């Protein structure tokens, strides 16, 4: 097969996989009824309904507020954290690094359930504080709390990009500032952070964008006080008319995409900018980390406190809930301890299948997904053509669709594309949905590895007479083997964590832990939810431990 055929084939399949669900959603938004309904007509009725609804604007406003607030918290903290970890002598850096990344890999619904038990109005920590102070100084269900939690859990995203940028920069300028008498804080604010500003900006846009995707946190924490964001507004919308309405949901999705798509492209621009900046990197000598002296332990304490609030508190909460029958004001927890919730897990065939399916989608599905991402990355690798830019944009398109909606769109695709419909109730549908939703992330992982392969080896092979495909198979792929393994681990973690994409595809045979959690939460089986959450966290913990053991860098 000539390489051109391979390239066009990959390009075609990718375009089809990405464009079909998206165009279906856009098309649906311009109809007056579900697209499969014979009475459906083209029209703007759905748009005028949604845009006339004050709740839509309220939800949009809340979403923007949350996204801004998140960015305002996560960006400075993440950048500062990166500075501390990369440039200073904070104690225990080696052990802190993997811990810092945990919030990225724990499902937001699990974190939210945990917070309710831990610091809800009668949570375990709340009652302790109430005993000491006489009142609880926070309200978990307020918009402010939602912003703070969302902000704190997204610090690692900013940390990743800032740390990577800092590592690429020489420390000459910082040392110069230090010698001239600046204190470490001054060095960070006046020298280091301005140098990596493009990377920080990039992370800021990313966090802002993730704010539009928030689903798990507002679903659980926004419920009691009716804090609606766009993704939870989709639920409320259904009830306004009494009858679920595809076209209205599609309009909200188009509105979300209209906001997130420009953000995605802005990220791209910023990334290019950032790399340009980093081109001044120098291969400096191994340098001494900045000494923080008395601040050393203070900085350490701050990092540990942040970890305590974002990781320990919610995970402790959910774990505790999974071992008790009831909890709250006036309950002695020692009296209500139980292992029943874990025993009950095995009573339900769908839960057992869900656990197995989740492992399967992580291990096998993850491997196949990495193979697909590699196939796409190889197709555009060293291809000087305008098509590569198209692929660049293409893989980012699904990123703009929230997972919940991508799942629904894929359900439609599986329903109405004849040769796909037998696969609807199998894990293949879940796998395809996950693979498409995480296309951009996976591609970044794999292309990152590909970039490390210098062209000389491939050229040598070509001169020795190998054709292009042979070169890829026998030279490029073996060279990136380790990178692919690392990508597989990271995709495993992401697939095991995922919860929103599978909701509409959930059925017998397609259960995964994430969507089961949301569904069980809805029916009120909190006992099962807590035990299943812990199982999920353990899986992710094992994955993380393996990754750390193998020395995988937990980022692209």
């Amino acid at each position, binding site marked *: 097969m000539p390489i051109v055929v391979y390239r066009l084939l990959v390009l075609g399949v990718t375009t089809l996989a990405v464009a079909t669900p998206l165009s279906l959603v856009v098309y649906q938004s311009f109809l007056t009824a579900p697209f499969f309904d014979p009475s459906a007509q083209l029209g703007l009725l759905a748009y005028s309904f949604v845009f006339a609804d004050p709740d839509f604007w309220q939800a949009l406003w809340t979403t923007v507020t949350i996204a801004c607030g998140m960015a305002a918290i996560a960006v400075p903290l993440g950048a500062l954290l990166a500075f501390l970890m990369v440039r200073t002598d904070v104690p225990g850096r080696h052990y802190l690094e993997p811990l810092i990344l945990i919030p990225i890999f724990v499902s937001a619904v699990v974190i939210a359930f945990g917070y309710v038990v831990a610091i*809800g*109005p009668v949570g375990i920590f709340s009652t302790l504080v109430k005993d000491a102070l006489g009142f609880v100084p926070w309200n978990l269900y307020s918009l402010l709390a939602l912003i703070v939690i969302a902000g704190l859990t997204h610090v690692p995203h900013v940390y990743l990009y800032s740390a990577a940028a800092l590592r690429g920069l020489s420390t000459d300028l910082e040392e110069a500032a230090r010698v001239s008498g600046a204190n470490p804080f001054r060095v960070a604010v006046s020298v280091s952070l301005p140098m990596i500003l493009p990377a920080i900006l990039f992370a800021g846009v990313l966090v802002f964008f993730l704010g539009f995707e928030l689903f798990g946190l507002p679903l659980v924490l926004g*419920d009691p*006080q009716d804090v609606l964001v766009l993704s939870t507004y989709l639920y409320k919308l259904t*009830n306004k008319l009494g009858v679920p309405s595809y076209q209205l949901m599609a309009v909200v999705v188009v509105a979300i995409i209209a906001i997130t798509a420009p953000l995605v492209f802005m990220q791209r621009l910023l990334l290019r900018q950032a790399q340009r900046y980093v081109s001044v990197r120098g291969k400096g000598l191994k340098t001494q980390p900045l000494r923080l002296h008395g601040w050393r332990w203070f900085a350490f304490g701050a990092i540990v406190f942040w970890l305590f609030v974002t990781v320990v508190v919610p995970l402790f909460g959910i774990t505790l809930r999974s071992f008790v029958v*009831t909890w709250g*004001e006036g309950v002695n927890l020692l009296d209500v301890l139980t292992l029943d919730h874990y025993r009950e897990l095995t009573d339900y065939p769908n*839960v057992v299948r869900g656990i197995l399916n989740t492992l399967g989608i992580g291990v096998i599905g993850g491997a196949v997904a990495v193979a697909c991402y590699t196939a796409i990355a190889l197709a555009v690798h060293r291809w000087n053509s305008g098509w590569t830019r198209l692929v660049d944009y293409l893989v980012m398109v699904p990123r703009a669709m929230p997972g919940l909606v991508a799942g629904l769109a894929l359900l439609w695709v599986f329903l109405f594309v004849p040769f796909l419909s037998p696969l609807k109730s199998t894990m293949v549908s879940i796998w395809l949905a996950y693979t498409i939703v995480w296309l951009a992330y996976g591609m970044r992982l794999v292309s990152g590895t590909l970039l490390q392969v210098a062209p000389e080896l491939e050229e040598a092979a070509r001169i020795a007479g190998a054709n292009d495909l042979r070169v890829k198979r026998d030279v490029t792929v073996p060279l990136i083997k380790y990178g692919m393994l690392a990508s597989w681990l990271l995709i495993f973690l992401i697939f095991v964590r995922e919860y929103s994409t599978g909701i509409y595809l959930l059925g017998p045979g397609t259960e995964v832990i994430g969507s089961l959690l949301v569904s069980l939460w809805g029916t009120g089986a909190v006992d099962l939810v807590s035990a299943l959450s812990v199982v999920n966290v353990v899986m992710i913990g094992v994955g993380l431990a393996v990754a750390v053991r193998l020395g995988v860098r937990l980022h692209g």
Partner: protein
Amino acid sequence: MRHVVSAAFIAIALAWGTGAQAQAPQGYPADYTKIIEAAKKEGKVVIYATTDAVAANPLIKDFETLYPGIKVEYSDLNSTELYNRFIAEAAANNGTADLLWSSAMDLQVKLVADGQAETYASPEIKTLPKWAVWKDAAYGTTYEPIAFVYNKRLVPEGDVPKDHTDLLKLLDTKTDFYKGKITAYDPERSGVGYLFCNEDIKDFPQAWDLFKAMGKAQAKLYTSAGAMMERVTSGEHLIAYGIFGSYALGRSKKDPNLGIILPKDYTMVTSRVAFISKKAKNPNAGKLFLDYILSKRGQDIIANKADLYSLRSDVDGEATIKGVTQLVGDKARPVPIDQTLLENLDQAKRLAFLSKWQQAKKGQ
């Protein structure tokens, strides 16, 4: 030799088993065996339901013992997802549920009115209350009283409301104590909540006063009964208004702190509505399952294992029509399964109600 003997035993057992199964249940028409035979050929029944698998499990297991060879494929979804999925699959016409079983009574009636249901006169019809059968297609399967639920540890005994008027009085007199401590379904975000409010308005002249009092007490509104009960048992809230008695009963068995009240002035009763899909691939197995959950054997499990409350008057136990009657006498108000439910889906009515509700929420 041993193998031969045991093989013979198995053969006999199998022959005896199928022989016994091929008989129609007592009181059923003789040709019912045809449905059983056909259902066995189909080999499975696909069910979409809002009843969580936890509660449905004993029913499924018993059905599979009664009709060996017919596997139940059970999916629990929330009522919106169930509706969305079903109409899409029915339109795509390549396989969907055989039986739909949902607590969203209005959506189920709409699907039947839209012609999505197969007409099937169950042999059990004569044993069911009149309000529970519509057009020989939609069948009520449970008798679930809507209860108040409260925290026994933290609600003073004198405060426990016996009926709607009591609750209204309590909220008016101890507004501060119960500020933020009352919880209910949110009619703006939950179809069930909307249904409950509308039935209240029909049954209780002071309904709007009650809603306003809840607004003044800053009631916290949810979309899931589980979330409400979790927070009542923890003490975050104290009284939950309008909870399915079925969920409350199940939960109170695990957690003795949860108190249940069936209001004495009137107790609304809802029913999970089941129908057989017109697009069913296994219509006979669907019929078999429908008849089974309506039968005495199925209803006995509904009442005594699944805690879903039986609607047959010949079933004994706490969670039955008898049990409810014992507590509230003739004050039970079942929501009839018929076209009046469609009014709930009328857009203009809905928006009018919701704007009035938003006022009440502010206590006005």
